[in-house]
């Protein structure tokens, strides 16, 4: 039994892609903020990337089977943490998402919950020793997922809550959900959307407005539709070749909303043009395909579920964020992984990739 994985076991192509995306992100953060009061943000982001790499190395050391053994405890820990946040959480921007740790760093508990749900669902799905998921199993998957989803919705953080759902859906898909169940599920969702639409008055006013704005951005150009319109202007005015590094007027003059974080792709699209967007989106596609490749080479189904859990979350982030930037989806506050500025979000991505490395390193271990 090989106790320590060698340096060859590290997925260098994956790391290369991650490094490229992170590097582009840091440069764009610099470009977006260097002329403003937030100058110097890129160094902080680099620090988070460094911390993330260390975390990734650490998490890849612990056998993922060991982690999966602890799934029930982790799940309890996650749910209790979310409850604690709701009760004593530190409120910022009108939402309780952060817990202050020793007064140093504010940790977004829901980011940890993303990791936990990957592990928990991988464990649960690995326990289903069949290629066909029963309805009872589907129900259990639903309950396991919906508990944290509801708690995060309560914070309220619609974006992060939504992100947990694809882990369950993709997991169920690979655990062998029957096509007819998948079809029924899709139909149910199709029916639920109009129902949810009628329930929208139970949403927070800002959430209502976001949906309203998404559906009719032209009606409120300078109000809530402002963000989407400004993002589209930045993207569209970038043209094919872009305006050049640090030369995007919409970006530099601050018309692009949160241009260093949620809308960093709009800032990049303005300065680097369609070409730059192609490079970035193809890098993300490369990342996804490389992750799927890792899943395909996993030693067992548990490993595959872990890797595909990570893949589904990252893919969902990219899809929703890029769609938002071009006005295909409402503003939900979902960052672009590895590029958007943010400590917890960046750390999560690296820890999640650590799980992937973990699975990869143990593919030949018996």
């Amino acid at each position: 039994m090989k106790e320590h994985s060698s340096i060859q076991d590290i997925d260098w192509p994956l790391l290369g892609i991650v490094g490229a995306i992170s590097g582009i992100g840091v440069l764009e953060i610099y470009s977006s903020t260097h002329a403003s009061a937030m100058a110097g943000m890129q160094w902080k982001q680099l620090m988070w990337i460094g911390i993330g790499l260390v975390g990734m190395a650490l998490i890849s050391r612990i056998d993922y089977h060991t982690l999966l053994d602890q799934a029930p405890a982790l799940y309890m820990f996650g749910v209790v943490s979310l409850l604690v946040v709701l009760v004593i959480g530190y409120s910022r921007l009108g939402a309780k998402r952060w817990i202050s740790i020793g007064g140093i760093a504010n940790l977004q508990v829901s980011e940890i919950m993303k990791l936990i749900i990957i592990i928990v669902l991988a464990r649960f799905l690995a326990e289903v020793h069949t290629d066909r998921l029963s309805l009872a199993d589907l129900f259990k998957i639903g309950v396991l997922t919906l508990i944290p989803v509801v708690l995060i919705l309560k914070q309220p953080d619609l974006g992060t809550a939504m992100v947990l759902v694809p882990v369950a859906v993709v997991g169920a898909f690979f655990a062998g959900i029957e096509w007819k169940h998948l079809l029924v599920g899709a139909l149910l969702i199709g029916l639920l959307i109009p129902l949810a639409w009628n329930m929208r008055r139970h949403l927070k006013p800002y959430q209502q407005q976001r949906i309203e704005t998404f559906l009719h951005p032209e009606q409120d150009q300078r109000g809530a539709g402002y963000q989407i319109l400004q993002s589209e202007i930045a993207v569209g005015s970038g043209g094919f070749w872009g305006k050049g590094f640090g030369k995007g007027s919409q970006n530099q003059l601050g018309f692009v909303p949160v241009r260093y974080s949620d809308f960093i792709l709009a800032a990049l699209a303005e300065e680097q043009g369609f070409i730059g967007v192609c490079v970035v989106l193809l890098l993300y596609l490369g990342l996804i395909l490389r992750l799927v490749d890792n899943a395909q080479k996993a030693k067992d189904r548990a490993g595959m579920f872990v890797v595909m859990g990570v893949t589904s979350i990252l893919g969902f982030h990219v899809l929703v964020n890029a769609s938002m930037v071009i006005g295909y989806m409402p503003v939900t506050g979902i960052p672009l992984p590895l590029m958007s500025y943010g400590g917890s979000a960046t750390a999560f991505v690296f820890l999640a990739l650590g799980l992937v490395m973990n699975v990869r390193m143990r593919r030949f271990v018996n």
Partner: protein
Amino acid sequence: MAPWNVNDQKLPQGRLALFSYVSAALVVVLLVGFWKLQVVQSEHYSDLAEKNGIRPIAIIAPRGAMLDREGRVLVDSYPSFSILLLRDNPKLLEKSLPQIEDGLGISKEDLQQQLDAAKLEPKFLPVVVKPAASEADIAFVESHRADLPVLDLMMVQRRRYPLGEMLANTIGYVGEVSPQELEKNPDRYRPGDIVGKAGLEKEYNDQIVGTDGMRRVVVNSVGKVIRTLDNVEAIPGKPIQLTIDEDLQRVAETDFASKQGALVAMDARTGEILAMVSRPTFDPNDFAIRIPAQEWAALNSDPNTPLLNRAIQAQLAPGSVFKVVMATAMLESKALPPTYTVYCPGYANFYGRTFHCDHAHGSVDLHKGIVASCDVYFYNVGKALGIDRISYYAGGLGLGKRTGVDLPSEEPGLIPSEEWVERVYHHKWYAGSTISVAIGQGAVMVTPIQLARMIVGVANGGTLIPPHLLKDAQGLKSGSFPISDDTVQQVTDGMWGVVNEPDGTTSGTVKLQNIDFSGKTGTAQTESFELQNKLGKHLKENGWFVGYAPRRNPEIVVAALVQGAGWGSSVAPIVRDVVKAYYDKKSGHLPQTSTAENIPPSGGVAPAAPASATQQP
């Protein structure tokens, strides 16, 4: 090992491959989305991007100043700041309102009202919440740039009227261009432009208005100016010099105090208006900022019509001042001999009606008729002349017609004639009406400025001077209505008597030493004798005095009207003061009200009165 970890199943390779294909497909969909924006609609968005960041800012050109004849400032402009409220971010706006109310001292209702009023305007047009910001207001906006980005400052040019209410009706006022004016001159005006609305501000708007400049700046998302792209400076409006003499204006205004009426002082040789008063009046400074709706309504509905320039717009019966026209007509038409004499028992009967005189004058000739203002004498003159001859001479001397003074909205007044009565009332002229017209009552209506010009015309042999306010006015034309020297001599001697002879209607109270001051009083009833008899008292009467000097070929004329003054003789002192101030200035004695800048070069001013003032008949 736990049972969950039994490695007994194959991986779902098919579904994993499917996942990859779907991922690739979704990336293609996203790229198509970016392609649409960045390639297909790139031009449209580039356009929007440019509009986003580049904002044109008008640089308002100051209106030209108005100076008096000696270069003293009567009206000027000064830069000031307006506080703007940006409305393009409603949520931010809503949140900022309480702080703005406190900081700028605007009431909540007021602010809401202004926002409601602008509801239908495009959201990117800001609202002016404070048109004239104080230093404290400006400091408040500057210090809250970061947390109150909805506030902004705009430099504007404001009109300043240092004289306040003095000369106000003549100068007029400014205001925002009206929708009608905008429609008429879409190339010249933009909404919000300040234009002259009345008086000289309106008349000479085109001369004094400047050309606004334009600055294009790059602004960031909170409207902060980052840098200037280009700059076209504003061209300030040219100043205009008026014929007004501030010193004389002050003397006249001070004399009027709270009286109601009007005064016109003119250079009798050129028609240059030296002073022009209209009371009650208003303060044009109130219009320079933004006149509150209630104040505007109050000014408009005030029964005393403070916005009316009485000097050119009050159309009133001239009373006995009209006797100057009658005397001239009598002599010129030769309808009666110059020696024509009447016995005045205090009344006379014509056409079965009794017409009164203020008292029994006994035997009255033309000279006494003018000096003592005997109505009975002129009733007889009127009867002999007939309405059409009276109308011919009155019209010839410029009554019942606009003088053409360079002010908007001058009124013509009215001189009745047979033709007029047939046209308007569709009946023949009643001969009895001529008797009232003979003493400047009945349908006769004139303006103060017409009377001033008429008197000068009689005293100079028939030259009708062109009244004007612009110092270097071009293309002025005098009217001509020749009057024989004999007539001029007789009528002007009569007017000299009014002031200087013991039985003159001014009772010698307004005599001026060394000045050949002459004039004619008038008292115009505002209702009929019958009504007065019924009420048993005199109601308000309008007092007139038109004075000039010297007796012939005058150099100054002053017409004054005091409404509700009673007898015309009480108006004469005002005219005397202005005429005296004119001669005092001429001889180097400055009026009390003059200011320091106003001292002429020392030396060379003769203490003696000029020759013209010492002439005695």
